[in-house]
C-alpha cells in the first residue's frame, strides 16, 4: 500500500486546503516544534480510523480539531482525504466532520475503490485489509514512543499479549487462525445438522438428542466463556488506562514518599530536641557554680594561704611564750625541770631565731570568715555539660531547618498533584487486578468444563456418525465433517510450523537491519523470544542487559524493518521525530537504511534532527521535501521545500 495523495481541510493547525500528491519513495517533512508534524501523522490516523488521540492517549474532540482561524471565519467542518494504491487497486478515503454551534460533531465517511463507491461494510473491511488500526503502531509512529516495544520482551503482560497479536497480524498468521475458527464453526454446524438428521431417524433419535444436548451445553458454556473474556478485556482495558494515567505521576509518588520521610525525620528531630532541652535545663540549674567558681577560686586560694600563715604565726608565738615563761621561772614550762645555763642559752638562741623568723600573728582574721563559704563554691562540670548539650541542640535544629526547607520545596512541587484522582485510579486499578484474577480463575475452570463438554460431544457425534455412515444425507454430511476435521488438523499443525518460520524469519531480518543500524562492534545480533521481543546478543553469545534508550530505539526500528519485510502486505511508514534519542552516527546509519524500511517512508523531523550532512547521505533516495510553514499561530501550510 502506498499513499498517492493527501488533502487536509482546516484540520488542526492546518488552515484551509493543504494538498500533496505522492509516489513511492522517501519524503522528508520539516517542521519546528509546534508546526504540526504530529498533527499530520494524526490526520492520516484520523482519516483511517476516525479518532484522534493526543500523546497521553486521550481522545481529542472534533471542536478542538477544527482549525481555530477557520472557525473564526465561520466554517464548521474539517476533513482529511487519503488516496491509496494497493497493487492495481486505487482507493479514495474521505472523512469529514461537521461541528455544530453547540460543539456537537457529526462525521461522514466516503470510500471508493477504482472509482466505485464502497458500502459501509466493505469500507471498514477494506481499511482493515489496507492497514488495520491494530498494526498501525508499527507503521505510523512517534519515534519518542518506540520504547513501548520493550513490552515484547515480557512474557506475561497484557501489553505484550496485545503487541504479539499485532505482530502476528502483520505477518499474516491470523489467516490460519481465521481459517481454524471458520472451519470450527462450519464443523459445528455440520455436526448440528447431522445430529438433527439423526434425530429424525428413530434409531438415531436418542443419539441425536444426546449430541444436541451436549452441543447446547457446550454453546452455553462457550457463551459464558465469551462473556468472561469480554469482562477480562474490560478489566485489562481499565488496568491499561489507569496504568497510563498513573505513569504520569510516578515521579510525584517518589516525591511524596520523600516528603513523608522528611516529615518523619523532622518529628524525630523535634523529639530529640525536646529531650535535650530537659537535660539542658537540669544542667543549667547547677551550672552557676562552675561560672562562679572561676571567679572565686583565686580569692579562696589567697584566704587559704593567709590562714596557713596565721596558723604558723600562732604556733611560733605560743612556743616563744612558753620559752619566755621557762626563762623567767628558770624551769621548763612543759616538764617542770630546772634549767641549767646550757639550756637557758639554747632557749635564748631559739628565742632570738624565732624573733627573726616570725613575730606576733597579725590581727587581720576578719576576711577569713568568708573562707568556708567560698571553699564550698567548686567546679562541678555542669556548665561544660550544658555547653555540650547546647551545641547538640544547635546541630539538631540546623538539620530540622534543612529538612523543613526540603519538605517545603517538595510540597510546592506536589501542590498540583491531583491526589484524589490518583488515589481513585490506584484503587480502581487494584480492584480491576482483583477482578481480573477472579475472572482468570473462572476462565480456567470454564476451560476445563469446556474440554469435558467437547469430549462428551465428540463421543456423541462419533456414535451418530457410525450409525449414519451408510445412509444418504448422513453419509454426505459425515464426509463433509471428516474433510473439515482433516483440514483443522492440517491447519493446526501448519500454524505452529508457520509461526516458528515467521519468528526465525523476523529474527534474521531484524538482525540484518540491526547490524546495519548499530555502531557497536561488540553486538553480534538479535535473538527473538516467543513474544517477538528482541534481545541483543554480544560476540560471546550473551544477552546484553541494561540497554540504553538509544539502543532500545535501534532495536525497535530493527523490529519494524523486519516486520515490514515479512508483512503480508506492505504499508507506508510515517515516523514522527524519529531520531530523538540517537547520536549522529546512529542517525546516519538509519538514514542509509531508510530505503529498506518500506516502499514509502515519511520522516517528520524538526530542525535539530537532520543536518545538511545527513541530507547529503540520502539525497539520492529523497523523493521530495516539504516544510510545515507557519503564517501565524493558527495557520500552518504544507509547502514544497524548494519554494521556501
Amino acid at each position: 500500500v502506498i499513499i498517492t495523495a493527501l488533502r487536509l481541510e482546516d484540520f488542526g493547525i492546518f488552515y484551509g486546503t493543504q494538498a500533496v500528491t505522492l509516489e513511492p519513495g522517501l519524503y522528508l517533512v520539516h517542521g519546528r516544534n509546534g508546526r504540526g508534524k504530529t498533527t499530520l501523522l494524526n490526520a492520516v490516523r484520523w482519516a483511517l480510523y476516525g479518532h484522534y488521540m493526543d500523546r497521553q492517549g486521550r481522545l481529542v474532540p472534533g471542536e478542538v480539531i477544527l482549525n481555530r482561524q477557520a472557525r473564526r471565519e465561520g466554517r464548521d467542518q474539517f476533513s482529511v482525504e487519503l488516496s491509496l494504491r494497493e497493487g492495481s487497486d486505487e482507493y479514495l478515503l474521505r472523512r469529514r466532520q461537521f461541528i455544530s454551534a453547540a460543539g456537537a460533531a457529526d462525521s461522514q465517511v466516503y470510500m471508493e475503490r477504482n472509482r466505485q463507491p464502497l458500502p459501509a461494510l466493505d469500507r471498514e473491511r477494506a481499511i482493515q485489509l489496507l492497514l488495520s488500526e491494530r498494526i498501525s503502531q508499527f507503521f505510523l509512529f512517534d519515534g519518542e514512543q518506540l520504547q513501548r516495544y520493550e513490552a515484547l520482551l515480557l512474557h506475561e503482560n497484557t501489553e505484550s499479549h496485545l503487541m504479539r497479536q499485532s505482530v502476528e497480524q502483520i505477518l499474516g498468521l491470523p489467516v490460519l487462525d481465521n481459517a481454524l475458527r471458520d472451519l470450527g464453526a462450519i464443523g459445528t454446524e455440520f455436526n448440528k445438522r447431522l445430529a438433527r438428521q439423526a434425530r429424525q431417524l428413530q434409531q438415531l433419535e436418542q443419539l441425536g438428542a444426546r449430541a444436541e444436548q451436549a452441543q447446547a451445553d457446550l454453546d452455553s458454556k462457550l457463551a459464558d466463556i465469551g462473556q468472561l473474556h469480554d469482562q477480562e478485556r474490560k478489566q485489562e482495558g481499565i488496568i491499561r488506562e489507569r496504568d497510563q494515567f498513573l505513569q504520569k505521576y510516578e515521579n510525584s509518588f517518589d516525591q511524596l514518599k520523600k516528603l513523608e520521610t522528611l516529615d518523619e525525620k523532622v518529628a524525630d528531630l523535634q523529639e530529640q530536641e525536646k529531650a535535650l532541652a530537659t537535660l539542658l535545663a537540669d544542667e543549667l540549674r547547677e551550672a552557676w557554680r562552675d561560672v562562679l567558681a572561676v571567679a572565686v577560686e583565686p580569692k579562696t586560694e589567697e584566704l587559704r594561704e593567709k590562714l596557713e600563715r596565721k596558723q604558723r604565726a600562732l604556733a611560733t608565738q605560743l612556743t616563744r611564750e612558753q620559752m619566755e615563761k621557762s626563762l623567767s621561772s628558770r624551769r621548763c614550762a612543759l616538764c617542770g625541770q630546772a634549767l641549767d645555763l646550757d639550756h637557758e642559752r639554747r632557749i635564748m638562741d631559739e628565742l632570738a631565731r624565732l624573733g627573726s623568723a616570725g613575730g606576733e600573728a597579725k590581727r587581720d582574721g576578719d576576711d577569713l570568715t568568708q573562707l568556708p563559704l567560698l571553699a564550698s563554691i567548686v567546679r562541678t562540670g555542669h556548665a561544660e555539660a550544658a555547653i555540650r548539650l547546647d551545641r547538640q541542640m544547635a546541630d539538631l535544629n540546623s538539620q530540622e531547618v534543612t529538612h523543613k526547607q526540603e519538605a517545603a520545596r517538595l510540597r510546592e512541587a506536589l501542590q498540583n498533584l491531583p491526589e484524589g484522582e490518583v488515589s481513585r485510579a490506584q484503587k480502581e486499578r487494584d480492584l480491576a487486578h482483583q477482578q481480573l484474577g477472579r475472572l482468570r480463575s473462572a476462565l480456567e475452570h470454564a476451560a476445563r468444563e469446556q474440554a469435558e463438554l467437547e469430549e462428551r460431544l465428540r463421543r456423541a457425534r462419533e456414535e451418530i456418525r457410525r450409525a449414519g455412515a451408510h445412509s444418504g444425507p448422513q453419509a454426505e454430511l459425515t464426509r463433509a465433517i471428516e474433510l473439515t476435521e482433516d483440514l483443522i488438523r492440517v491447519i493446526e499443525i501448519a500454524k505452529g510450523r508457520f509461526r516458528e518460520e515467521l519468528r526465525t524469519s523476523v529474527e534474521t531480518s531484524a538482525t540484518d537491519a540491526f547490524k546495519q543500524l548499530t555502531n557497536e562492534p561488540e553486538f553480534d545480533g538479535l535473538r527473538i523470544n516467543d513474544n517477538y521481543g528482541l534481545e541483543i546478543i554480544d560476540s560471546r553469545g550473551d544477552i546484553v542487559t541494561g540497554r540504553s534508550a538509544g539502543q532500545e530505539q535501534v532495536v525497535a526500528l530493527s523490529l519494524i524493518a523486519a516486520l515490514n519485510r515479512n508483512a503480508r502486505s506492505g504499508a507506508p511508514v510515517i515516523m514522527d521525530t524519529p531520531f530523538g534519542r540517537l547520536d549522529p552516527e546512529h542517525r546516519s546509519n538509519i538514514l542509509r537504511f531508510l530505503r529498506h524500511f518500506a516502499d514509502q517512508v515519511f520522516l517528520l523531523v524538526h530542525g535539530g534532527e537532520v543536518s545538511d550532512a545527513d541530507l547529503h547521505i540520502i539525497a539520492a533516495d529523497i523523493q521530495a521535501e516539504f516544510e510545515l510553514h507557519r503564517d501565524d499561530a493558527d495557520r500552518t501550510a504544507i509547502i514544497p521545500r524548494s519554494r521556501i
Partner: protein
Amino acid sequence: MEDRRPDPLGALLDAADECGISLPDGLLAEILQMEAASSDQEAARLMVQAQLRSLIETIARSSS
C-alpha cells in the same frame, strides 16, 4: 536483503504430508485465498464461512 517470506501454503502442504491426509488439489490454496481477503468483522467472517462451507459440501457431494 534477500526477500524470503515464510509461506503459509508451504506450511499447510507440509503439514498435510506429515499427517498423511490427502486433500483435493488446490483446496488449501483456495482456503488461504478466501481467508486473506477476509477481515475480523462479523459480516465478513460469515460471508467467508458460507463460501467455505459450500466448497466443502461440494467436495463431499462429489466424492459420494
